[in-house]
C-alpha cells in the first residue's frame, strides 16, 4: 500500500495550491460580505480546465482522477468554501450523473460545454417536503407527445441562476413510490422554468442558493436521464459521489482554520510568551491536527475507491461524516484560540466557522451518513 501522491497528483497539487492562494484567497472575505457569486473566479478556473477534472478527454474533460478533483475542492475550500462548493456541485452533481447515466448523445451535447466551464451545472432533488426523505418527491413530469411537462419546485439549489444545466428529479408515476421517480436534464431559459427567492445564509454566502420553479415547463422527451423510473437510483449514486466532494470541502475548511490558528497562536503573546507555547494550545492543536489528517485519509480513500470503480458508498459517507464534524470542531476551536479577535470579521476563522456548519447538513446530513454506514454494517 502506498500513501504517496503520484508525480502527476503532486504537480496538480502544486498548481491548485498556488491558484487558491493567489486567485481565490484575496476574494474570500469580500464575496462572503457582499453575498456575491465569484464570477471572476469562474473565468480563471475555466482557463486552467478545472470544470471537468475527472472526465475523459473525449468528452472535453481533463482526463484526471476523482482524487485530483477532491484535491481541487479541498485546496479551493482551504481559502474559500463558496468557491469549493461551486466546483463540487457542478462536478459531482451535474457533470458526473450525465457522464455516468447519460446516453452518448446527451454526453456529447452537454459534457464538452460543462467541462470547459462555458456552462455551469446544478442539481435539484430537495423540495419543501422532501429533504432527508428524498423519496417524497412532489414535482411531477408527465409525457405529452414528444415532451415531458414538469411542475413543482425545488429548494436550496446550489449554483442556481448561474448554472445552465440542471439535473431535476420528478415523479413520473406516483403509484410506484421511489420506482416512479425519474431524472431529467433541464436547461436554463426553458419556458416555464424560473428562479424563486435567493436564500440568505449563515455561511457559504457567496454561493448562489435559490428556489427553482417549474410551471408547465416543457422539455424534449430525449432529456430523460437514465431509465424511466430510475431517478432515485441516479440521485443516490450521484449523492455518493457528491459526498466525497463535500467531505473534501469540509477538509479544506478545517485545514484553512488550522493554518490560521497555527499562525495566530505563534504570533499572539500573552503572559510574556506566544500562546502556542502553552500546553493547552499544543495538546488541543495536536488532537485537531490528528483529526484533520484522519479526515484527509478518509476522503482520499473514498476518492481512490471511486477511481478504482469499486463500491464506495459507505466510504464516502464516513469521509463526509468525519470531515464535516472535524471541520465544525476545528473551526469552533479556532475561533476560541483567536479569542475576541476570532469573533470579528478581521480574521477569517469567523467565516470558516459559519461555512463549516453546512457541511454537516447538505448532500445528506450527518444523521443520513450514519444511516448509510449503519446500513452497510447491519445489512
Amino acid at each position, binding site marked *: 500500500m502506498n500513501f504517496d501522491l*503520484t*508525480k*502527476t497528483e503532486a*504537480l*496538480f497539487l*502544486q*498548481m491548485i495550491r*498556488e*491558484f487558491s492562494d493567489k486567485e481565490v484567497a484575496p476574494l474570500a472575505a469580500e464575496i462572503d460580505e457582499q453575498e456575491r457569486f465569484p464570477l471572476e473566479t469562474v473565468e480563471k478556473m475555466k*482557463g*486552467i*480546465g*478545472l470544470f471537468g*477534472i475527472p472526465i475523459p*478527454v473525449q468528452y472535453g474533460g*481533463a*482526463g*484526471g482522477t476523482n482524487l*485530483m478533483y477532491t484535491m481541487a475542492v479541498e485546496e479551493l475550500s482551504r481559502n474559500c468554501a463558496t468557491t469549493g462548493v461551486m466546483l463540487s456541485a457542478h462536478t459531482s452533481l451535474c457533470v458526473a450523473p450525465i457522464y455516468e447515466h447519460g446516453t452518448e448523445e446527451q454526453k456529447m451535447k452537454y459534457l464538452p460545454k460543462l467541462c470547459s466551464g462555458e456552462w455551469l451545472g446544478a442539481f435539484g432533488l430537495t423540495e419543501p417536503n422532501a429533504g432527508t426523505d428524498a423519496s417524497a418527491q412532489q414535482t411531477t413530469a408527465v409525457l405529452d407527445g414528444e415532451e415531458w411537462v414538469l411542475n413543482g419546485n425545488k429548494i436550496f439549489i446550489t449554483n442556481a441562476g448561474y448554472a445552465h444545466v440542471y439535473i431535476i428529479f420528478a415523479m413520473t408515476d406516483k403509484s410506484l413510490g421511489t420506482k416512479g421517480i425519474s431524472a431529467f436534464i433541464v436547461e436554463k431559459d426553458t419556458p416555464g422554468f424560473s428562479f424563486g427567492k435567493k436564500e440568505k445564509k449563515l455561511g457559504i454566502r457567496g454561493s448562489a442558493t435559490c428556489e427553482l420553479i417549474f410551471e408547465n415547463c416543457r422539455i424534449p422527451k430525449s432529456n430523460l436521464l437514465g431509465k424511466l423510473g430510475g431517478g432515485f437510483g441516479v440521485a443516490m449514486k450521484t449523492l455518493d459521489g457528491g459526498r466525497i466532494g463535500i467531505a473534501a470541502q469540509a477538509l479544506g475548511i478545517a485545514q484553512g482554520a488550522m493554518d490560521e490558528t497555527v499562525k495566530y497562536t505563534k504570533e499572539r503573546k500573552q503572559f510574556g510568551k506566544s500562546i502556542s507555547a502553552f500546553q493547552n494550545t499544543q495538546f488541543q492543536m495536536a488532537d485537531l491536527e490528528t483529526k484533520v489528517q484522519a479526515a484527509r485519509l478518509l476522503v482520499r480513500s473514498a476518492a481512490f475507491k471511486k477511481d478504482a470503480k469499486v463500491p464506495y458508498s459507505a466510504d464516502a459517507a464516513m469521509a463526509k461524516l468525519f470531515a464535516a464534524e472535524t471541520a465544525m470542531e476545528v473551526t469552533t476551536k479556532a475561533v476560541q484560540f483567536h479569542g475576541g479577535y476570532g469573533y470579528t470579521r478581521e480574521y477569517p476563522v469567523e467565516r470558516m466557522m459559519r461555512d463549516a456548519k453546512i457541511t454537516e447538513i447538505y448532500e445528506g446530513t450527518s444523521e443520513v451518513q450514519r444511516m448509510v454506514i449503519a446500513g452497510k454494517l447491519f445489512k
Partner: protein
Amino acid sequence: MNIVVCIKQVPDTTEIKINPVTGTLIRDGVPSIMNPDDKGGLELALRLKDSFGANVTVITMGPPQADDMLREALAMGADRAILLTDKRFAGADTLATSNALAGALRMLDYDIIITGRQAIDGDTAQVGPEMSEHLGLPHISYVAGLEYDGGKTLRVKKETEEGYMLLETGMPILLTVLASAFKPRYMSVRGIVEAYGREVEIWTADKIDVDESKLGLKGSPTKVFKAFAKGLKQAGEVYEVTPEEAVDLIVSKLKEKYIL
C-alpha cells in the same frame, strides 16, 4: 516561428536558510521551483504561441531531478522539452553553462531564444548575454514588454535604471526577460495529466556542438574564494543637526575613514 526558452530549476530562496558556521546554503527540505524570470520568459513564448502558432522548446542544464520542472513547462504549454544532463557538465560557472547551452542551441532551430534575466540562486544575469556572444547573436536584456504583429520585426521594451528603451529588432535574437512583466499562466489540468506521459529528451555532452574543454569545472574560470553569511550590521549613529552642520559632519566622517 521557433522559440527556445532556457529555464533553470532553483531552490525557492524565499524559504532558504544559510548555515551560519559553514556559510553554505541549507538545501534540505527547500522546494525546487522554476526560476521566476525564466517562468516569465516561458510565458512570453507561450503568448507568442497563442497568437502566432509558435513552436516552443524548453531546455535546461541540470541534474536528473530537473525533469519535474520540465514537466511543469510542458503542462503550461511548451511543445518540446530537453534536459542537458551529464557528469561532464557538473561544477559549471556561468561561462561553462552558457557554453553548454549554446552547444545545445546550435543543434536546434530558433527565431527567438528567451532566458530569464537572472536566476534567484546566483543572481549573475550573465548566462543569457554570454550565450548570445557564443552564438554570434544580438541580444536585448531586461525585457519588460514585447509587441509583435507576425512580421519580421519585434518591438521590445527594455528596462533600464532610468526608465525604458523601446527597441526594434529582427530575428534571430536572444531576449532576457523580467518576471514582473509576464505573469505566468497556471499549468492546465489536462496539461498536468498528460505531462508525465510525454517525452523529455535527455541530451549528454556528446549530443551537443561544443568543445568539451569548455564544459563543467574545466571550463569554469570562476573560483569561489569564500562563502559567508552576511552578518548583522551594528546600529548606526543618529545625529540631529541642521543641514549645514550635517554637511560638515559627513565630510569629517568620510575623512576619518580615509574615503575622502
